[in-house]
């Protein structure tokens, strides 16, 4: 009942003119979205220069009204350092006149943290992301519970994976909270870190999701609530480009966590014994989302989708879960589910980028790139920092072979997401496709600097090496990638990696390791059965080894699936002709021309009826005698012929 509050607050102000009451009045105006009125109320009384909270509220109002320059001016009035007490206890606070500036019994550090966070927001709004990131970090230093600052840092990929870890380590956890809480906090924050830069195993999921004890999280949240934000993890959409000789790995980057992460996971599991609270927290939706993400980046899409569906059943609009869920549906090509989800989202939250992102993704998977672009562009308008939308925007160009435009979109994404290697990877990919191999290598190198353990980058580098005819290097890169993948998958590796195995097969073939090549191709076939490209690759290897018959068989198979594959049909023609040259006429045929072994009787004789017509008596009588003696044999030989 903000209206009521406004009315009575106004009356109170008329009575007292107390700054505290004015603050409350302004707050009511803020809630009623009367930002300029609130700003005027406070500025006309110069409150923003004297009272911290008033200053804070003014900035918030200006930010909400999108007056960024003004906001920055106001926020700079207060130099927070000034107010920063040497000792962090609240009672022992600075000069007396500032004491009343904090009206309520709010802990000081929270207030400072909020102000820093707000400053960060303003700076970010002005596209000054580096300074903004500093502000967020400071906010976290003031108050480790300031989740929003942490989230802003991670969500928009401002930091690289190693920077994120550093940040987490530098947090003054032990000073600000108890040992137990510190553990929990670290664990929670860790679950938020990047997961795709390196592969790692998925911790076992709790089978049933219980409502979490969210107490701690809530206490961690600041009281201030800026505009609702959709949380967006970077979700990578695949782009389906295949190049000629070697099927280019298109897939988005997966993956997961570093060794450090692994260690922390172990730590976590051992913690659970001592810390029942943490155990319970594990079933909080946020933690499950983290698990789903890890599954996603491990390419276990089906499992991931199962998990996200459970989450969305409990909380249909769980903002953290939605992007990962959408990406999963893209991978699984569930256009129907995505259609429904997009519709619901747009109906309920037309102002959220994620809603339009979902719409764009729907059009993307049904192959209507034009529409996809339109809606993805809308998503990026609503939230310029929404990385996934930019990437998907790039993909929509990429599948239509519009390399330049795709690259432009990826560049934009890479500017926005400094700490994310995906845009760089995609740019490299596009460069490779446009035959700009040198440039591609450079981009891959940059990507690798950010995420050294990502098998996708290794794979792409291998492909470039292959194109450069550096087969040794290609093999090394592919194998390294394969090792990294195998480390986290005990059983079969996901289907996504079919092209890696297949490329490894191609490379081994080039290196003349034919047996090994066959081995890899067959492994690839296990991951992706009935694949014409693999069939014809296997056929090719066989024809090189000289197993012509098997080659024919495999090429036949390949053509059975894809009838107008020119490579296979040319090869088949060639191989089949070769076959007729080099193989014996039939299995077990003699080398020499066989001698015809005549059966017993070798002479033709005249029969009796002919004899009568015959004019040469002598011959006839001869033939008669001959005939009698051979009659039996004749019937025998005929029998043997007819058997």
């Amino acid at each position: 009942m903000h209206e009521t509050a406004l009315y009575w607050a106004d009356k109170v102000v008329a009575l007292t003119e107390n700054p505290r009451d004015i603050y409350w009045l302004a707050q009511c105006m803020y809630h009623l979205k009367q930002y300029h009125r609130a700003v005027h109320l406070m500025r006309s009384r110069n409150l923003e220069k004297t009272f911290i909270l008033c200053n804070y509220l003014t900035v918030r109002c200006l930010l909400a009204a999108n007056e960024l320059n003004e906001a920055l001016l106001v926020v700079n009035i207060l130099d927070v350092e000034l107010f920063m007490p040497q000792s962090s206890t609240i009672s022992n606070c600075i000069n007396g006149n500032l004491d009343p500036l904090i009206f309520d019994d709010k802990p000081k550090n929270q207030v400072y943290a909020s102000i820093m966070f707000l400053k960060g927001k303003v700076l970010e709004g002005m596209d000054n992301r580096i300074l903004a990131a500093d502000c967020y970090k400071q906010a976290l230093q003031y108050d480790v519970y300031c989740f929003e600052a942490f989230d802003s840092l991670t969500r928009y990929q401002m930091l690289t994976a190693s920077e994120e870890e550093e940040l987490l380590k530098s947090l003054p956890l032990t000073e600000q909270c108890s040992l137990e809480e510190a553990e929990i906090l670290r664990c929670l924050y860790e679950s938020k870190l990047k997961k795709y830069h390196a592969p790692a195993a998925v911790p076992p999921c709790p089978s049933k999701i219980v409502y979490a004890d969210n107490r701690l999280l809530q206490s961690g949240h600041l009281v201030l609530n800026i505009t609702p934000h959709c949380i967006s993890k970077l979700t990578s959409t695949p782009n389906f480009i295949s190049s000629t000789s070697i099927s280019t790995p298109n897939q988005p980057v997966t993956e997961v966590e570093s060794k450090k992460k692994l260690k922390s996971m172990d730590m976590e599991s051992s913690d659970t014994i001592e810390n029942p609270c943490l155990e319970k927290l594990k079933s909080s939706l946020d933690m499950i989302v983290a698990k789903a993400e890890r599954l996603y980046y491990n390419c276990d899409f089906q499992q991931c989708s199962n998990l996200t569906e459970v989450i969305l059943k409990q909380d249909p609009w769980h903002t953290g879960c939605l992007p990962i869920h959408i990406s999963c549906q893209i991978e699984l090509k569930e256009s129907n589910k995505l259609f429904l989800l997009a519709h619901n989202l747009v109906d309920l939250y037309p102002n959220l980028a994620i809603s339009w992102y979902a719409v764009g993704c729907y059009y993307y998977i049904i192959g209507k790139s034009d529409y996809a672009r339109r809606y993805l562009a809308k998503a990026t308008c609503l939230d310029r920092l929404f990385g996934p939308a930019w990437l998907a925007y790039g993909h929509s160009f990429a599948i239509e072979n519009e390399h330049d435009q795709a690259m432009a979109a990826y560049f934009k994404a890479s500017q926005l997401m400094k700490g994310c290697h995906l845009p760089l990877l995609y740019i490299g990919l596009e460069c490779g496709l446009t035959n700009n191999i040198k440039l591609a290598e450079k981009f891959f190198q940059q990507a690798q600097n950010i995420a050294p353990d990502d098998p996708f980058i290794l794979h792409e580098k291998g492909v470039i090496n292959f194109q450069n005819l550096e087969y040794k290097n290609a093999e090394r890169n592919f194998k390294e990638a394969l090792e990294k993948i195998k480390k986290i998958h005990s059983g079969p590796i996901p289907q996504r990696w079919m092209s890696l195995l297949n490329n490894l097969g191609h490379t081994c073939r080039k290196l003349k390791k034919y047996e090994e090549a066959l081995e890899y191709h067959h492994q690839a076939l296990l991951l992706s059965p009935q694949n014409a490209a693999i069939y014809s690759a296997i056929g090719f290897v066989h024809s090189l080894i000289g197993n012509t018959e098997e080659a024919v068989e495999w090429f036949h198979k390949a053509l059975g699936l894809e009838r107008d594959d020119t490579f296979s049909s040319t090869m088949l023609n060639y191989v089949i002709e070769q076959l007729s040259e080099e193989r014996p006429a039939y299995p077990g045929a003699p080398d020499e021309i066989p001698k015809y072994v005549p059966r017993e009787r070798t002479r033709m004789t005249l029969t009796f009826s002919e004899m009568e017509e015959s004019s040469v008596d002598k011959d006839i009588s001869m033939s008669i005698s001959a005939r009698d003696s051979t009659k039996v044999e004749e019937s025998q030989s005929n029998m043997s012929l007819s058997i």
Partner: protein
Amino acid sequence: MDLRSIKKDILRGIHDCSQRGLYHSVKWLSELNFSLSHVKLSHQFIPESEEFEDEQEEYLLAKSYFDIKEYDRCAYFVKSCTTPKPRFLYFYSQYLSIEKKKLDNMTDSNCPPDSSKNNSLKNLCEQLQHDFYQNKLDGYALYLYGVILKRLDLISSSIEAFVKALSFEPMLWCCWFELGKLVSDKNSLSLPDHWMKQFYIAHACLEQLRNDEALEICQSLCSQGFENSTYLMSQVALGHHNNRDLDKAINMFKKILELDPYRLDNLDTYSNLLYVQEMKTQLADLAHKVVSIDKYRVETCCVIGNYYSLRSDHAKAVLYFRRALKLNPQFLSAWTLMGHEFMEMKNINAAIQSYRHAIEINHRDYRAWYGLGQTYEILKMYFYSLYYYKQAQQLKPNDSRMIIALGETYEKLDKIENALKCYYKACSVGDVEGLALIRLAKLYDKLNESENAAAAFTEYCLREDDNKEKMYDDQTEFFNALQYLANYHLNKGQLDDAYTYAYKCLECNETKEQGKALLRVIAAKRGEQDNEVKMEDPTENTSPPEETNTSDMNFSLMILENQ
């Protein structure tokens, strides 16, 4: 073999399979059990049928849905079960649902389900694979895993899965059956030593066209107490059919139909037999009977298709084969037969398609390979047709039709030596159609192997001469051969033989003139020889110097006349 313990095994197997909805295995085992009805078991041996298990509620619910073919519903309710039985039902119902949807979505049976759109099957396979690697699959699930792998063309893995499944559940007939269709050689697998293995070996031998072995095993099984099994009888009939013992096979089928008049299994083979023997009335009778039993069975459709084909109503025949394939796109013989019909209708492309599908389903269908060879021969792509004929020949090494076709193709490719070898082989395995010998002779002639050529021609002439009564209209080949021989002997100076052949040439109008000319030359030579004999010592039979190319008979004749 101890029939009592076998019967116990069978009863247990029937129970287990029916619990899991593997109805074909149940049927097979029950038939076998029926054939053992003379063996009686005392009561305590009959296995308990009801037992209490975990997750029984879910299982019973799912099973009831499964039985009325609501597969998706069935799968939904056993989704999270962990005990093997409902778990199997979960996978199996999903598989059946996928297959059913595929059939339903198939608009035209000429294009079977697109194998590139196998995504749901691949997903199911992935789920199974996951459990497989964790060793969570029991025998039945392993069997299902094998079936799906086979569907995805991963043959070696699927064999592996089947073998593993059998080590757990040796009574799973469907598994033996699938394995028999997949393996290509005899003893490479380590299979459990179970009495079921005998049935498997017989089946596998039949599949690999090692018919005599199969018949032997069937015989021994029959003598061991299974003599009433209609299954074994049908196997025997199939063996005879493959051996081209057509009458025996037909009699066997008649016997089966007497015992079990409503049995439709394998009747398509029976109709093939009747077709080959051109027993029109019997085929018509069979067609009417099977229609009255079940109109929409693949076997029925094939029988009718054959019937129409025999009446040369090829379009209608194709219609019925199509219907069969609509009912079951994996039904091999319908594909092959449809290919034959298309050949009759000169629709080469459709024929190729049909044959190819047949080969995709079973690599060992020599008729389809042969048909493919024929189609490509018509298309004048001889290299291809050579390859296909070769495949067919490999499968039926002693069938002269294949090898003659191979020889013809070599001839077309101008590979005379290879062609010659083929014809030679055809003669040695028994030339049913009687084409090989004359061709062989001609090729010998072409390669200047006149000795061999003459020998072959002689044999040919002798045979033709004996068959004179049933001689066909076209005798030019015969008389050309005679002429060749006459020349040959003349060149060798064997005047008597030359005379005999030349004399025979007179019978035909075309060669009459040349025959007369030859006779004249012979007479002249005789005169010379007589003179020589008088003048010198008789050196009979020394061949004249001009024993040379006789490939062109007229040419050699001219040489002779010029002398």
